[in-house]
């Protein structure tokens, strides 16, 4: 009889144990989405209501006019000729929503393409040529290693060296990113997907791609001396002035798809593809309206890069699923928090 009670105990304990193990309760050192966002919050301080990265931003809207050129490489409805609405956000990388603008900070463009029949395409792209880390664990290590030492105001050189030793691909990528030519503002920046995706064509073939938004607005180099004196929102202010200027054309970018060759790495965002790869101009993005996050639609959108229409699929880049998981965590936390005023307020838009 005792044996039977023991057997029941063992079976039940086994099932409960399996559940706990699956949920990570026996793995306190595993990097989970929650622990990842905890790291952002530890490094940047608590800013309730705001995104835990790319915290400082402004909402924009416009439309995408698809030329139909990309329809042969993807069956996604967005690439058929025609126009779809876009809800977007320009932001600066970093978790402090009130950080002063600076030309060296990574700029992002986030877009939500509203497609027929409830489909959406969401993407978040940055003004750097390659990404600085290959894996989510490396991203977490980089956040910690490059955190400013309170005593010096700069990262601890020993920690930085240790990070580079552990992640040689970042040791190569970070100097390349830091020496890139930087444009004067959001409006004339080129934004790149960094991660590779797969387009699925009408025949079901999988085609490795990356994409970029190439500005129609001409490149003008950032002037570091000028920017220092221009106020803490000078990049956003310039963007707002440009969009609201009635005598100027709306801002436009070409969505250019780069097709990878069979040997090109599609799971490593730190490696650029050679410049001679085939490019397809899928159409033109027009941004014609800007609004503060406080009143705009973009604040309550999670620009999860794996919200994709049929015809676009993720690659096995480890950063993609990690982005989806961590963005969801950040969104869940901020969705339940009271909203504070953004750095770029509605009053600032009107000026």
């Amino acid at each position: 009889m005792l044996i039977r009670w023991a057997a029941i105990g063992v079976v039940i304990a086994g099932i409960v144990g399996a559940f706990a193990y699956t949920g990570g309760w026996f793995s306190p050192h595993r990097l989970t989405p929650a622990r990842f966002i905890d790291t952002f919050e530890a490094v940047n301080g608590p800013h309730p209501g705001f995104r835990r990265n790319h915290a400082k931003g402004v909402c924009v809207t416009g439309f995408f006019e698809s030329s139909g050129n990309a329809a042969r490489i993807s069956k996604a409805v967005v690439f058929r000729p025609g126009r779809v609405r876009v809800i977007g956000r320009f932001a600066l990388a970093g978790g402090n929503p009130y950080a002063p603008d600076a030309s060296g900070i990574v700029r992002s463009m986030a877009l939500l393409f509203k497609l027929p029949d409830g489909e959406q395409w969401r993407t978040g792209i940055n003004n750097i040529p390659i990404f600085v880390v290959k894996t989510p664990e490396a991203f977490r290590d980089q956040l910690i290693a490059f955190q400013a030492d309170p005593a010096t105001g700069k990262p601890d050189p020993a920690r930085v060296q240790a990070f580079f030793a552990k992640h040689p691909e970042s040791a190569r990528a970070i100097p390349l990113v830091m020496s890139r030519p930087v444009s004067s503002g959001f409006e004339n920046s080129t934004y790149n997907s960094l991660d590779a995706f797969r387009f699925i064509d009408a025949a079901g073939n999988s085609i490795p791609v990356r994409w970029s938004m190439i500005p129609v607005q001409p490149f003008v180099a950032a002037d570091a001396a000028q920017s220092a004196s221009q106020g803490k929102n000078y990049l956003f202010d310039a963007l707002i002035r440009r969009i609201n200027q009635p005598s100027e054309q709306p801002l436009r970018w070409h969505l250019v798809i780069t097709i990878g060759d069979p040997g090109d790495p599609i799971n490593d965002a730190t490696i650029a593809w050679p410049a001679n790869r085939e490019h397809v101009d899928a159409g033109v993005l027009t941004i014609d309206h800007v609004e503060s996050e406080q009143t705009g639609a973009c604040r309550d959108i999670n620009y999860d890069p794996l919200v994709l229409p049929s015809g676009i699929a993720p690659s096995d880049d480890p950063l993609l699923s990690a982005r989806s998981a961590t963005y969801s965590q950040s969104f869940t936390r901020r969705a339940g928090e009271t909203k504070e005023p953004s750095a770029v307020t509605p009053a600032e838009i009107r000026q």
Partner: protein
Amino acid sequence: MHWTMAAMIIAMLFIGVAMVASLADYHSLVAIHRPLGIAILILVIIRYVNRKLNPPPEFIASMPPAERLAATISEKTMYAMMFAMPLIGWGMLSAARYPIVLFGPLHLPPILPHSPMLYAFLRKTHTIVAHLFFATIIAHFSAVLFHTLIVRDHLIDRMVPWKVRGGDFAGGPNT
């Protein structure tokens, strides 16, 4: 229906705790979690209608009142959670205005107004009810093992397609 849904629900609970603790497998697990949840919702509607039309057998004479009450409450609770969990999931995605993808281009419409606060509340509720569901299943399974191995009243004969061996308990389901 019982066994199919038990397998699906246990799979969903394990997939759920795994996906929120994972970076690499999050996307593929969520992609299974959504359509499997809706499949459970469809099946539980059919199952509930069937239960109303074909009531289950009476309690066996040997079950004391307290145990009957526990069994009734836990059954009602499980039905409630089988309905609530997929609806909370569908509702929370609606409140967040995520596209609710089942597979390929097949989408569900939103069933709640757009509200980040409502999303945050439902998201937490989904986790809490999932853990309650797991606890209830463990209690249910413990009771099944108790009746089968300790009391040996052949109560399990009602559910399993095979004959349970052994025991000469006189208070079985056909007495």
